[in-house]
């Protein structure tokens, strides 16, 4: 059984966001791109399943501008994934179009059982692609998963919701699993792993070949704005007692928040 993992390449979390002069989007000039941090948990989990004999190989997919996105795929290969597929696509596809492309590419592989993703991508925080892939493949999903056990006929996934509540789901048959932090500790790529990944041939597909197009886009983003400048901070002086007293007074009388 092959395990499929869908990953996204996103700006590194250290990135300072600059906007294009016409505010139509973010200026990515000089921005360092990395594998979405939550997708690392998905890749790690898939590799562990293969190492545990629950899967024969790990195939990683990504949708986006080919020249850039292959770097994230090489990271996954260096971690230990077996094969990688890039679906070349413009920068601004939305969750619906990306999910349609991924579902199409997975279907083309033939048999599918488990598809792993990150719970969300840290660029747009949409947390939508995983559920949409599940819908397009007509299989169940479990998102925000921090514990996963794959049995012979079903999988048991534990998802975390508000207030520390945990929901335990049994998924019978194929399913999409969206990983949360806590599922595992992603490994670092080893040097031999990196060397090996460099030599691997990454399969290239077009959007057309997987049955998706820019016409599948349902959401676009425009009129970007940077957050309003905050007024300068008011620093409170004196000893700890005086500072605490002044702060409590300001929060009640000036800010009116307590």
């Amino acid at each position, binding site marked *: 059984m092959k395990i499929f993992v869908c990953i996204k390449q996103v700006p590194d979390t250290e990135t300072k966001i600059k906007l294009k002069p016409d505010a139509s989007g973010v200026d990515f000039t000089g921005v360092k791109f990395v594998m979405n941090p939550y997708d690392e948990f998905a890749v790690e989990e898939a590799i562990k399943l293969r190492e545990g004999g629950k899967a024969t190989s790990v195939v990683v997919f990504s949708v986006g501008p080919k020249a850039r996105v292959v770097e994230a795929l090489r990271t996954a290969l260096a971690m230990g994934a077996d094969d990688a597929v890039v679906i070349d696509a413009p920068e601004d596809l939305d969750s619906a179009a990306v999910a349609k492309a991924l579902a199409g590419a997975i279907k083309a592989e033939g048999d599918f059982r488990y598809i792993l993703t990150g719970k969300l991508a840290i660029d747009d925080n949409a947390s939508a692609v995983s559920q949409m892939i599940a*819908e397009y493949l007509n299989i169940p999903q479990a998102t925000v998963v921090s514990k996963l056990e794959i049995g012979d006929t079903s999988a048991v996934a534990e998802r975390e919701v508000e*207030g520390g509540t945990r929901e335990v789901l049994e998924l019978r048959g194929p399913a999409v699993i969206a990983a949360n932090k806590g599922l595992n500790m992603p490994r670092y790529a080893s040097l031999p792993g990196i060397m090996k990944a460099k030599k691997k041939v990454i399969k290239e597909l077009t959007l057309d070949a997987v049955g998706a197009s820019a016409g599948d886009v*349902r959401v676009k983003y425009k009129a*970007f704005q940077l957050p309003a400048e*905050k007024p300068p901070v008011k620093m409170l002086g004196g000893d700890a007692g005086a500072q605490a007293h002044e702060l409590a007074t300001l929060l009640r009388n000036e800010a009116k928040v307590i």
Partner: protein
Amino acid sequence: MANVLVFTEFADGKFKKGALELLSAARKSGLKIQALALGSGAKSLPFGAEGVDEVFVADGAQFDKYNPELFSETVSSLLAAQKPAVVLASSTMLARDLFPRVAAHMGVGVSSDCTELEISADGNVKARRPMYAGKCTAEVSFENSPTKIVLMRPNQLTVVAASAAKSPSVTDVAAPAKDLHTIIKEVVKGTSGKLDLTEANIIVSGGRGMKEAANFKMLEELADVLGATVGASRAVVDAGWVPHTMQVGQTGKTVAPTLYIAAGISGAIQHLAGMSGSKVIVAINKDPNAPIFQKATYGIVGDVFEVVPKLTEEFKKLIHH
């Protein structure tokens, strides 16, 4: 005439605050209001008092636990039949899991985490949302999307009482006749009893400056006095002092409470991105050059171990008066 359908989450026989916010926004639009509620007791909710015109309920224990497959089948078939111009839901964990799937089923657009919303009389939507965990914001533009699904963050819209009550029709929504492949085995309730970070009105967060896990007790005491939820920076989560569910930041939770108190947090860019939407920010740090002070409303340069207990005392005095 265009309809707006509100997905109303509820607990203990009452609409959740987020649902009241959405109903207020729906009334403001002047559109016909439909409401959908799933779970035991849904039928008894005060829809009429909220100015709802048409109610859809699946009032049964089957819907008391969230089953993604059951919910998406049920909601998708209702929405595909009703074709509202706008669907509003709170951007809760449940809705964020459910509605992308419903949107894909209907072939329409969905946007989670919206913070601004205007609905025009013709059923068009103007919404904004944070991007890159709040490093910037953008307007959401729906394309080829006869139904627009908007998930609003709680605490962003004002609750206004309905000016007139209505007597809505109530329709039962049936669960689809289909074998489910998803079984809910167990729901283990969180023990904290505190609001989740994403819903909390006040957050007290600790960072590396707290020196060790045991010192978070001090922040819990402060939080208890304020009715706040305790959060943390990535550094202390990675150090294993607190669970990752407490992490605020770009790889944790993005929060926007009324008051955010950062104790011993220097303010890495990922943390600042996750909390800079807070209305009032208090920073307590011994390093006057810590980046957190650039985002703060009020700053205290000092030792957290001296300042935090004094603050707890001060708040006790204030709040007990």
